[in-house]
């Protein structure tokens, strides 16, 4: 995406727009909050392991929201947990991104009608960037969700968050 287009012949100098450089840096190191909720978290962990290797996209789990760029809501969000998630989200520094993983986090999933304790969609509490459908989504689906998020970050401008 144009970052290396204006390379000089000696190879040591690159000219790029600040937007492009920042976006490239951000989308290449989306550090996620090490945080799992339910069965989707198992798929998320599988995505992190060597077979699917989240790390090749620059996704590394961080153990504190202060160092995280993204949070993957991987599972059923209970009303009790929603308050904690909101606090974690607020503790993350800008720019921050949210991937809602699986039907439960998207809309309540199988608990939509009789789940007296389930929040029917994490977007009722915090703003979601990418929704990944599935119950649970396979690692490939989560990877595509991440690619969609990277696409979104690529088109950002320093002047406003979302493209």
């Amino acid at each position, binding site marked *: 995406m144009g970052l290396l287009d204006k390379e000089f012949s000696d190879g040591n100098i690159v000219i790029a727009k600040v937007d492009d450089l920042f976006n490239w840096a951000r989308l290449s190191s989306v550090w996620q909050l090490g945080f799992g909720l339910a069965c989707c978290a198992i798929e998320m962990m599988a995505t992190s392991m060597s077979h699917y290797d989240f790390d090749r996209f620059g996704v590394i789990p961080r153990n504190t929201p202060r160092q995280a760029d993204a949070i993957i809501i991987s599972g059923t969000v209970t009303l*009790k947990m929603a308050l904690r998630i909101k606090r974690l989200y607020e503790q993350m520094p800008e720019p921050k991104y949210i991937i809602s993983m699986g039907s439960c986090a998207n809309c309540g999933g199988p608990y939509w009608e009789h789940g*007296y304790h389930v929040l029917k969609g994490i977007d009722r*509490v915090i703003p979601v960037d990418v929704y990944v459908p599935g119950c649970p989504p396979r690692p490939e689906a989560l990877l595509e969700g991440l690619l969609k998020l990277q696409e979104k970050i690529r088109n950002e401008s320093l002047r406003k968050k979302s493209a």
Partner: protein
Amino acid sequence: MKSAEEIFEMLKGEFGDSILVLDNDTPTEPIISVDPLQIHRVSKFLREHPDLQLDSLMCLSGVDDANGNKVTNADGDELIEGGTLSVYYNLHSVSLKHKISLKVSTSRTEPKVESVENIWKSANWHEREAFDLLGIFFLNHPDLRRILMPYDWDEFTTEVSRHPLRKDYKNPEFYQGMKVPY
């Protein structure tokens, strides 16, 4: 090893009217019905008697029998008036290898059952769960707080939305500013 009939006869001899009936016609273990305000004495006997030694409380479950009258209140909600809530105790003797179930039934409007927490420690969280989801009060329980629902659930709910596993439960519209229904 003792059969359900033998255990029932022993209890009947020891406690008389506190032991109500033996229900043998169940797909699982036979069930002995007990007075809810005598369950502590009975449990202690079952655990400590050398011929019984029921030292393991495998499960304790609360049940809404929903056997009261269905009425419709001013808001158009269907409620259950009267009837009973029950607690089932599934007991097992590790050394003597016999099993028995106990049942207590208590009024739905003022559900009070004696706690067996100081006889079987596993009852502690089970009784908290039955309290949380059905609103059964366990007398002499050391720590009768909600265990699954949020601690401040009562502040956001009304009488009909306090205990979710009651058959006439209605979801509250909001909890902490979050919309609850779909």
